[in-house]
């Protein structure tokens, strides 16, 4: 596959693509295409997405994660994305930051989940430095006597951002959704996940999350993020047309909208499971 881009002043080049209100499915398709068919490094910032949308990780089971009847009643779209991780509901209050990089873009970084998350935690440390929001959730794994760096961003013990990744042979994508703001009513579409970090302590969504808007302005967060990225990469502004030009035409993204029939079948599975 691709070789890394020419370095300038020792920093790798990254295309900075700033979007606003792009639908999340369109964003995910773009990310997947850039991961699989581009040879450039990319940083995508999408400032909000138009409609409230539920986004599950690759292995998410709707019957376990979602209040499906409410979702069908209110016609909320449900997407299964190509990366791992949990379920989120995103809307205009969500700010998305995505990195798509060649495996040798960041010197000395092994393209495995933990090293990539460690790298991103240090980048976001720069973003939040000096602001009350600080600290990253950590969990002590007593079985192995190590402290595991989680990928959640928290204030105290309340989460305001989470991320997920996809890693190929020569590239990786690391994307984060930040809860700058959210609608309380939307959280009612999500169930308590079976797999959750210990620090969640079985809290429901409203007790578990918090809003970034109480601590930092939208523009300040985005500006600080760009500045932090600029400390690690040489930024090159890009437009959406530039991204589309570089894409191979044959690739079909795997992120998709779940059909209502699939959600209905999930309700049936849930009822069958509860009766057995």
């Amino acid at each position: 596959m691709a070789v890394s881009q020419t370095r300038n002043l020792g920093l790798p080049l990254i295309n900075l693509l700033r979007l606003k209100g792009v639908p999340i499915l369109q964003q995910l398709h773009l990310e997947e295409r850039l991961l699989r068919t581009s040879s450039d490094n990319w940083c995508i910032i999408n400032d909000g997405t138009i409609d409230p949308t539920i986004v599950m990780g690759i292995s998410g089971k709707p019957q376990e994660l979602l209040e499906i009847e409410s979702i069908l009643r209110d016609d909320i779209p449900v997407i299964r994305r190509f990366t791992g991780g949990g379920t989120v509901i995103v809307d205009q209050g969500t700010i998305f930051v995505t990195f798509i990089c060649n495996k040798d873009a960041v010197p000395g970084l092994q393209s495995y989940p933990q090293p990539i998350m460690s790298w991103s935690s240090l980048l976001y440390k720069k973003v939040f430095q000096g602001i009350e929001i600080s600290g990253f959730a950590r969990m002590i794994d007593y079985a192995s006597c190590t402290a595991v760096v989680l990928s959640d961003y928290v204030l105290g013990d309340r989460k305001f951002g989470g991320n997920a990744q996809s890693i190929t042979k020569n590239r990786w994508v690391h994307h984060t959704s930040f809860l700058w703001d959210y609608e309380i009513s939307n959280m009612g579409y999500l169930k308590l996940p079976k797999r959750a970090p210990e620090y969640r302590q079985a809290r429901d969504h409203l007790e578990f999350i918090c809003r970034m808007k109480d601590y930092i302005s939208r523009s300040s967060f985005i500006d600080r993020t760009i500045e932090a990225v600029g400390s690690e990469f040489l930024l090159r502004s890009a437009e959406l047309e530039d991204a589309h030009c570089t894409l191979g035409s044959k690739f079909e993204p795997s992120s998709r909208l779940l059909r209502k029939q699939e959600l209905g079948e999930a309700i049936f599975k849930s009822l069958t499971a509860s009766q057995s």
Partner: protein
Amino acid sequence: MASRLWATKAASYLRISVPYRGFATGTWTLLICLLPTNAVIKDLKYADSHEWVKVEGNSATVGITDHAQDHLGDVVYVELPEEGTEVTQGASFGAVESVKATSDINSPVSGKVVEVNSKLNDSPGLVNASPYENGWIIKVEMKSADELTCLMDPDQYSKFCEEEDAKH
């Protein structure tokens, strides 16, 4: 080595300690010697993307190595191809999910998938617990044994892993 630096910086910021295998002197030497190293099995061939292949006639069994499962973390889901799918050496045929990440699994050989390990649907952790035996992923009817010359033998793979880890 540098990957350890990233983790060290993050650990320092979080005020946590993270043990590493590596060069050590004095009282730590014995402890380091007792730490398990990633297993490499003889009679298998290895790809630089950390998959192994066991060849029996023109049948190839494929999985990911102990090094890979160790670095990926707990596997919670395996995306398997369908039987009958064509695979190409070096190309992705499926994925594992671990620690919020999907990671491609690449085929060390070209051919047709004749069997998938359906036990991984209910027990994805077999990839961690038994990467070379019960955690096998697919069986392939190989197109050409000539492709095996592109793969590493156990000693080459062990050295490859050491060099890769030392660089980060």
